[in-house]
């Protein structure tokens, strides 16, 4: 029985030597992931920091079975997610930067549909929708409006609710707070903190936000050009990169590890894209 196996698994996630490249031209490839290995313990929150184009979203897509890796293994709760996607899909969910919905339908309709795909009935989902939306500060009176009328931040909250409704044991969050106003950002971060306190779910959180990573995550990884160049607790990362007697900020660690600031790295990446 899959559920029992999953409950017994030691790690929420184990990636071994994941490679992924995308074809750009005839013999031209974009290397999105290069030999990425990573273990996520049960109940742990791991953050991935990385500039644009470093491979964060690809990493999340590979885990969520939306992209097939060229090589390497993905174990979700001890089950090979590449070979047996259907066995693990029930136990994880993903929230991505772009909140993809049927924009003409209401939040309620989208949520009910999303939940049913995971076998969650209306009777189960409706009270949860109410509770989750109240929890993240979504004005429940707007739940029947077409989603195209909602702001991006509000749509993002619905995206979070869609994932939470299925009670995922592994949450894959791809920049869940990007583009939110400070208030909404706080709400969403508060929610992640609450999930973490529950110890029921494990979370992989990709973000651009150093503060968010430091505050919410047990360990932080740095992804640069598809390579995971560091993965440790914030303290250890700081200790490793300490030069004087003052511990560096995470920002400084990032700079030392990647040779650029996050902003600069993004800037270079944009230039590269323009040049290409």
């Amino acid at each position, binding site marked *: 029985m899959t559920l029992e196996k999953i409950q017994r698994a030691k790690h929420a996630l184990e990636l071994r030597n994941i490679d992924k490249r995308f074809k750009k031209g005839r013999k031209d490839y974009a290397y999105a992931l290069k030999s990425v290995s990573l273990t996520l313990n049960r109940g742990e929150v791991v953050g991935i920091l990385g500039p644009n184009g470093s491979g964060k979203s690809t990493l999340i897509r590979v885990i969520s079975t939306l992209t097939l890796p060229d090589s390497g293994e993905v174990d979700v709760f001890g089950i090979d997610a590449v070979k047996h996607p259907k066995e693990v899909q029930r136990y994880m969910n993903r929230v991505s930067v772009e909140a993809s919905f*049927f924009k003409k339908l209401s939040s309620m309709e989208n949520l009910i549909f999303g939940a*049913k*795909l995971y076998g969650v009935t209306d009777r189960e989902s409706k009270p949860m929708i109410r509770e989750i939306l109240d929890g993240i500060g979504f004005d429940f009176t707007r739940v029947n409006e077409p989603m195209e009328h909602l702001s991006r931040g509000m749509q993002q909250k619905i995206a979070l609710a869609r994932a939470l409704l299925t009670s995922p*044991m592994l949450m894959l969050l791809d920049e869940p707070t990007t583009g939110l106003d400070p208030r909404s950002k706080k709400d969403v971060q508060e929610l992640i903190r609450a999930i973490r306190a529950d110890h029921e779910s494990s979370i992989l959180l990709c973000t651009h936000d150093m503060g968010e990573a430091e505050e919410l995550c047990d360990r932080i990884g740095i992804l640069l050009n598809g390579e995971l160049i560091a993965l440790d607790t914030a303290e250890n990362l700081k200790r490793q990169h300490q030069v004087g007697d003052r511990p560096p900020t995470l920002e400084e660690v990032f700079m030392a590890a990647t040779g650029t600031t996050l902003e600069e790295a993004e800037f270079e990446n944009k230039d590269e894209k323009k040049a290409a």
Partner: protein
Amino acid sequence: MHAASAPLTKPGWLRELIAVWGYAQRNYYLTKRYVLWEVVWLVYTTMNALTIGFIGVGSGGSAEEIARLTTFLLIGSMVWSYLSMIFDLLSETVSWERWEGTIEYTFMSPASRVTQLLGMGVYAIVYGMARVIVMLIAISFFFDLSLGDANYLGAAGILAVCSVSLVGFGMVAAVMPLLSPEKGQQVTSIVTAVLLLISGIYYSIDVLPGWMQPLAYLSPVYYALDGIRETLLEGQTFGSQWDNIWPLLIMGAVFPPLGLWLFQRGEHYAKRTGRLKRAG
């Protein structure tokens, strides 16, 4: 936090059943949200059927001949509107999912493709039937039809058998928008147009050039029309239509699995090459 958590313990078959309902309900929500467009479309197809019906009325000949031709044309028009809708609904829903980006969420959910096909197929059939009934009522006000001997039950049976192969056909066509939302819909429009031409919807396929006629035998719509005309116009029994029914049964057994298989190949290809991604 999330106190009332959704049970993870439901058996697989029950989860799939809930998801079938989810897919059907999702398409219902979409119809409801676009209800004005649906009405416009229904009026348009009804007008179209009327127009074609009047070609029959203006054809000359005895009252009986006129009624017969009119009925012949209207059957074509109605059956085509129903069957093409099933076909279009499947491929259109997939292109829609691609545009909105929700396809990633469908593909990472535990619900299987069979479930998706069933959910959309069931909705397409029920909705298609409802539309045809409305059209029939509207049309019956305008024409003297030659349905004295009609065997309605037999016709409905043939239509039902044909619906299954059209659902499968729709899934085959849905592979196109899955791989490319822009070009995909164009290809399916061409497929629809070819079906319209070769299936003998407004004429007997004997009038087609010789090389074209064999193509009709590949179209489930041809057999459905032929059988339905025999049952409605001549009052033939369902059983007497075996010549039309066995090809439909074979196509009904072949197209849905073929559609699923192709769709899954397409899905695999898209997941390998990163076709699903739009942004982020």
